[in-house]
């Protein structure tokens, strides 16, 4: 647990340490012989590179960074409050229609507004991409902007300070000694090195001054943490944009196609749900089999915490229940054959209800069956009611007996049978690996930043000038000949105070030891 105190340019300036701004300002002054120092006269003389510099300055502005982070926070809020759908659903006009029809029940007149702003698919919407990209650029610019300084502090630290620095430094210390300057500096160096400081000599005050710092390299931690966040943002965008997520209702004993050009089929060999005596769920498990053609490529018992993984796809146990096997044909061609999960119950509990979007149309089909053990619903046992909707409008409704097709909205609907299904969520997420890489880097970068605080201090040995009028005093009241002075620009905080105290006390001990050894007794 250590602190990273910011180098305060304004504080340092009056303490005799040149600020980084001052250094930067010097670097920026370019004098060209014969050029008019008054600057460009016409608009045409502004170099193209100025545009890039302007963009760069824009992105490393902390205000811009803050606004972008706030914008991200707003998106986070939207993402958790507004019902979200996938980019794939949004891209398909028919599916989008039926999604919006359902959304309207919740958001009413706001639905078109939310839709137009892209808030139903917030994390795949163009404004979000813009915000994320700008945030990534902002972090990149902020980090880039700091790299030269971090490099400098490690490789070319500011070794020299003016003597008056030691009168004004935020944190100061001093150790009196009679040792000669060389011995005093050697002792100081030894103590500082024992405290894991890197000690450099100040060539502008040879034999008189030292510079010392600790963990000057740890700025790399900040760089890693910030760059890792860009990786995390990218991972999130990749997941939202290219990830596949599909809920499959696999009839127990039945098979569904995995799709997505995999040529795979998924079979649920069995499903069981067990409960405790109090009726709390104890375990859900599906025995799943993945096949390519006739060849079984994977088979596993799938529980909530142990998904089946194959070929970049994962199959998770999410739900289970009763489904209706439904077949739909158009002109004799089968267009839909799936187990439709009956996820809802009618208000009186007498009916079980499911829904699906009819492929290739803007129609939504609601399937209603009698709930198990109930005979008082709108649908007789052994039959299914098909209700066909276009948006809010009910186009048609037909009751179909098991196994017999009924015609409606130009299609033939058949209710095959009722059976149990297991709800499997299929995922393929190319962003995942980046998310873990980014997270690991974030944690590593942060740990470096917070565990290896950058510290530095300056040391100067000063000879105390004897007042001319007094006689030199012998004995314990003798004034020490010299003062070893310490100065640091860090603010006085407890942890730094303790470090300085330790150094000062250790140095005093060290000098006392030297004294004891050196003095013939």
């Amino acid at each position: 647990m250590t602190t990273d105190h910011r180098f305060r340019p304004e504080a340092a300036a009056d303490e005799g340490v040149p600020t980084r701004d001052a250094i930067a300002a010097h670097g920026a002054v370019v004098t060209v012989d014969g050029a008019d120092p008054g600057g460009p006269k016409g608009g045409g003389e502004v170099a193209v590179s100025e545009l890039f510099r302007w963009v760069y300055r824009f992105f490393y502005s902390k205000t811009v960074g803050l606004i972008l982070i706030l914008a991200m926070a707003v998106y986070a809020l939207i993402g958790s409050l507004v019902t979200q759908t996938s980019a794939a659903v949004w891209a398909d006009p028919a599916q989008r229609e039926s999604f919006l029809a359902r959304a309207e029940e919740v958001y009413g007149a706001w639905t078109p507004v939310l839709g137009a702003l892209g808030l139903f698919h917030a994390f795949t919407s163009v404004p979000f991409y813009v915000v994320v990209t700008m945030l990534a650029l902002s972090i990149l610019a902020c980090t880039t902007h700091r790299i030269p300084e971090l490099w400098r502090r490690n490789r070319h630290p500011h070794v020299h300070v003016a003597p008056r620095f030691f009168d004004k430094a935020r944190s100061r210390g001093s150790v009196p000694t009679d040792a000669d300057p060389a011995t005093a500096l050697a002792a100081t160096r030894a103590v500082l090195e024992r405290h894991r400081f890197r000690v450099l000599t100040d060539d502008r005050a040879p034999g008189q001054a030292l510079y010392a710092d600790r963990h000057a390299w740890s700025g790399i931690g900040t760089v890693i943490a910030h760059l890792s966040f860009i990786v995390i943002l990218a991972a999130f965008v990749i997941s939202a944009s290219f990830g596949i997520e599909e809920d499959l209702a696999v009839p127990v004993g039945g098979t569904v196609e995995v799709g997505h050009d995999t040529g795979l089929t998924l079979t649920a060999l069995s499903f069981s749900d067990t409960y405790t005596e109090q009726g709390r769920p104890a375990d859900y498990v599906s025995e799943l089999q993945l096949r390519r053609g006739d060849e079984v490529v994977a088979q596993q018992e799938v529980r909530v915490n142990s998904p089946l993984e194959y070929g970049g796809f994962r199959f998770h146990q999410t739900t289970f229940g009763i489904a209706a096997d439904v077949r739909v044909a158009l002109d004799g061609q089968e267009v839909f054959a799936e187990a439709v999960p009956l996820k809802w119950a009618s208000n009186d509990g007498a009916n079980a209800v499911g829904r699906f979007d009819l492929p290739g149309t803007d129609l939504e089909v609601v399937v209603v069956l009698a709930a198990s053990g109930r005979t008082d619903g709108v649908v007789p046992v052994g039959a299914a009611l098909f209700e066909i909707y276009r948006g809010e409008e009910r186009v048609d409704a037909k009751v179909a007996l098991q196994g017999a097709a009924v015609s409606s909205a130009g299609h033939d609907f058949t209710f095959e049978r009722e059976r149990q299904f297991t709800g499997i969520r299929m995922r393929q997420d190319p962003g995942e690996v980046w998310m873990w890489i980014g997270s690991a880097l974030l944690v590593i970068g942060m740990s470096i930043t917070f565990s290896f605080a950058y510290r530095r201090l300056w040391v100067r040995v000063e000879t105390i000038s004897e007042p001319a009028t007094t006689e030199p005093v012998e004995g314990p009241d003798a004034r020490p000949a010299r003062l070893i002075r310490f100065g640091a620009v860090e603010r006085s905080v407890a942890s730094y105070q303790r470090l300085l105290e330790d150094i000062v006390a250790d140095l005093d001990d060290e000098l006392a030891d030297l004294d004891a050894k050196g003095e013939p007794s």
Partner: protein
Amino acid sequence: MSEVLQLAEYLLTASLVFVVLALICNVVIITSRQRRAAVQTSERVTVAAGVPSSDTLVVSPVPDRSRRRRRRAPLSGLAWYATGFAAIAFVCVLAYVLLRMSLTGHGPFSNQHEFAVSFVLGILGAYLVVEFVYQVRALSLAVLPIAAVLLLYAMSLDAGVQPLIPALQNNLLLTLHVGFAILAYGAAAVSCGAAALYLLHPKLRLRNLPARDLFDDIGYKAATVTFPMLTIMIVLGAVWANTAWGRYWGWDPKETAALVTWLIYGAYLHARVTRGWQGTRSAVLLLVGFLAVLFAYFGNHFFGGLHSYA
């Protein structure tokens, strides 16, 4: 098993008693006329008189070398009891958590009771570390009451052991996830306590209160523990969600609350490092951060979501 659990609950009662005792001792020490009980400045060095401003620190060695090497003066008198009681309270809670873990066979994450107790464990642990490192007992005035209230809350909840619902049957990841949450939240409580004392400092007319800036420093240091721990907690949560639900981030309300908490502590650190925020403004951010922690923690009472198993 249930008799053992009932007996174990006495550990919580004991812990509460010791927390209150420690708090009382500390109140007496801090308001005492006798002497500066809280060892503030090290005895190895003197802090020069006539310090120009509170922002400046001047150190020089103590003339008497024999008095050195004793920064942590041995605890004596009431201070010994105060620290002892706090330590016993910590040990009681730790024993309770370990006992429960050994009985249930999983980490303390199956219900709100277990998590409340773990929260207390984190707070007491973080408090003891800071008291030891900084030699500051005034912090207890703000931190121990939080622990006491949470203990009372934990004791009011159903402590029964239920089998884990399927989503929670992932022992290692969840124990780690909750473990880091405990560290993060414990440090957050300490940094909130320090921030509160920083803000109240001018109003508190207590004899043995350390310098105001010390609380600013403690608040910052605790936050530099909270932030990485929160990060690890969130990442582990994401790893778990990825196996259990097939996605690492789902904008579940509890996840979002954790993210907001993380953003607040991130804002605090950034404001401090890049804007030089210190003192009042940053103390307020720490209070807001801890409110977010509490919100994320109690969140499942306000909103449903996948985390609402408790």
